[in-house]
């Protein structure tokens, strides 16, 4: 069963090992991260050394080797956001929730991603929580938004029809709350 997932992904790209990165992106989309045993399977199926998969997985910042939290908090650290105080927001989130950029809180409530620029500079500083954009964020408002997350509401959302697509498209048109 699990092997089928791997063969399906490989088939999607005609077994071309040059398409390793898209394959790993698909694998991550499937499991939410890159489970070691799946990487091993992919390496065997493709006949590509596991070390190369690991080098790719650790080189690119979008790959994760550990499961992510229930929610995804993305903080833009682009130039404009930085000029408008994104580093203070990042510090406050890290202190308050005991998490590092790229890391997940101990209770797996959320994963914090600090990205270089989401290209929505008119909204700076920007924070994206599960695909929902927040503009003009301050350290206080960021903490308030994140404090409102709970381990359960994602389960409820998953049952809803639209939650998946809104995550996928990023700019899902959800309203900004100040």
């Amino acid at each position, binding site marked *: 069963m699990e092997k089928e997932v791997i063969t399906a992904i490989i088939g999607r790209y005609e077994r071309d090992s040059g398409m390793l990165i898209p394959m790993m992106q698909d694998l991550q989309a499937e499991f939410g991260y890159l489970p070691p045993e799946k990487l091993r399977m992919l390496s065997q199926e493709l006949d590509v050394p596991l070390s190369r998969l690991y080098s790719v997985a650790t080189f*690119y910042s979008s790959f994760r080797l550990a499961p992510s939290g229930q929610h995804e908090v993305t903080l833009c650290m682009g130039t404009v956001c*930085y000029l408008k105080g994104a580093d203070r927001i990042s510090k406050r989130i890290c202190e308050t929730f005991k998490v590092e950029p790229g890391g997940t809180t101990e209770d797996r409530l959320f994963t914090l991603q600090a990205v*270089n*620029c*989401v290209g929505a500079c*008119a909204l700076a500083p920007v924070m994206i929580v599960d695909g929902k954009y927040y503009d003009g964020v301050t350290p206080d408002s960021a903490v308030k938004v994140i404090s409102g997350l709970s381990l359960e509401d994602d389960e409820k959302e998953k049952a809803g029809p639209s939650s998946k697509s809104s995550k996928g498209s990023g700019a899902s048109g959800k309203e900004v709350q100040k």
Partner: protein
Amino acid sequence: MIAADERVKSPEELKKVQKKLKKRDKSVVSVRVCIGTGCAARGSHKIYESFREAAENAGGGVKVEAKCVGCHGFCERGPIVVIDPGNILYQRVEEPDVDEIFRETVLGGKVVERLLYEDPDTGEKAKTEEMIPFYNAQRRIVLKENGRIDPTSIEDYIAVGGFTALLKAMTMDPGEIIDEVEKSGLRGRGGGGFLTARKWRSCHAASGKEKYVICNGDEGDPGAFMDRSIMEGNPYSILEGMIIGAYAIGASRGYIYVRNEYPLAVEHLRKALDQLRIFGLLGEDILGAGFSFDIRINRGGGAFVCGESTALIASLEGRAGEPRAKYVHTVESGLKKKPTNLNNVETWANIPAIINGGGEKFAKIGTKNSKGTKVFSLVGKVVNTGLVEVPMGMTLREIVYDIGGGVKDGKAFKAVQTGGPSGGCIPAEYLDAKVDFDELTKLGSMMGSGGMIVMDEDNCMVNVAKYFLNFLRQESCGKCTPCREGIPQMLHILDRITSGRGEEGDIEMLEELAELLADASLCALGKTAANPVMSTIRYFREEYETHIKEKRCPARECRGMFLYDIDEEACRGCGICAKNCPIDAITGERKEPHVIDQAKCTKCGTCFEKCPFNAVVKV
């Protein structure tokens, strides 16, 4: 409804479809809602849905079409809705406004005054784009159809003249097409500024049957979103440019490498590719000309260095994105060791206009060595944040003040940063410099891909340099020593300077390291990494010296290098600062001005953030 859902097998068939689609029903009222990332984040999808519902329920012989369009550029005023006929532009539209717009404008033909743009100086209302200074100083070639067409409708693109350039190109020899591009003087829009035609010619001449064209959409510069907006707003123009380029070069396969953070761009490109395949403009034997070509999308992995051509190619080959030395050019041996031509999104999007109007016409716009227009994302401490397209040679002042509306909140202009992390900061005294490839390089910055970040008096230039260097430290791939080790060393010195531990000789050491990086690094990331530092030292040396000698940050940004004080007149004595102060350094009676004990104060800034009356000031 005419649809482009059948394969066209010859130029004649394509012309027929074009003719049909150009005949538009003039009685249809068109409502165009911007769904670019900026507007979408402010809820424009819901606005679109409401318009669509209203249009469906209108009945009574009224023909209304609501459509989603790409970025209009005026992100500051989003969400933006344009109603045609009349091209009435409504800004900062919210969902409750939809009913009124529909009733008054769509059905009644009247203007809703309160949603129009109002000139902040004169108070005059502007009804259309042309009446808004932000737009009327621009010249749009690449962004011409952005905000006009539905980026997921090939019919829309054809209706505004899409694929006429392709038709024309198919009647030309590959050599003639390259000649036309050469006459246009087009230079790469991704940062390098290399002549596009020269690249094409070398790739065309390179030996080998299999060749590739690549579109670099890995827009990594923070504060830049030109390419994203083109990919989201008019993916067809990029694809048309790529098909023409592939035909001229003799490539059979194309790749678009899109940044991972741009999901909407990927979605729109994917839809466009599917439509082009169905329509027969991609695949085998395109338009019966015996030319076969297809394009694949690859999503980036989130590595800035992949904007560099050889690193991007490594990534497309399924490896870590490490650049290689370029003693063999990619046009001879690139992807899979085959001749490969790589251009940036904006470069490709210029091609249809060049073929349509001819290279000479294009070359009339711009300066001696920089032709055409350039798209910039004008951001930072500027009144009108947004996407602008201007002819090369416009001055920085015109861009920042006439189009951008000047610095926000009445603050003083300090610098404008161009070229992303490889660029530099240009101070007020050079605001009248003309913006083109050569002028910006002379000023110690560069054109780059088009980020233009305005900074005001509150921004510390040493801290800005530190920001970019820190960015590059994280993004250095680590392959070559000067970049991997040099950047952290420079960052270490900047850290020291901005935390009050700067030493005599630090500036000189930075300059020495910068030279080393420029001389010894493998790729452009390392070679240009010191630019933000060098340009700020060049123009703001005093600021560095004040940090080092007086241990003071003149912009009051570097923590611990300025003091917090309470403005007696503004203080209402509410006590919030005292309550939040972590070391009880603030005292004062209720309803009386409070005082900070400077001997105790750790300068953490909590009082500054918490004060509801802005009575805590930085001194």
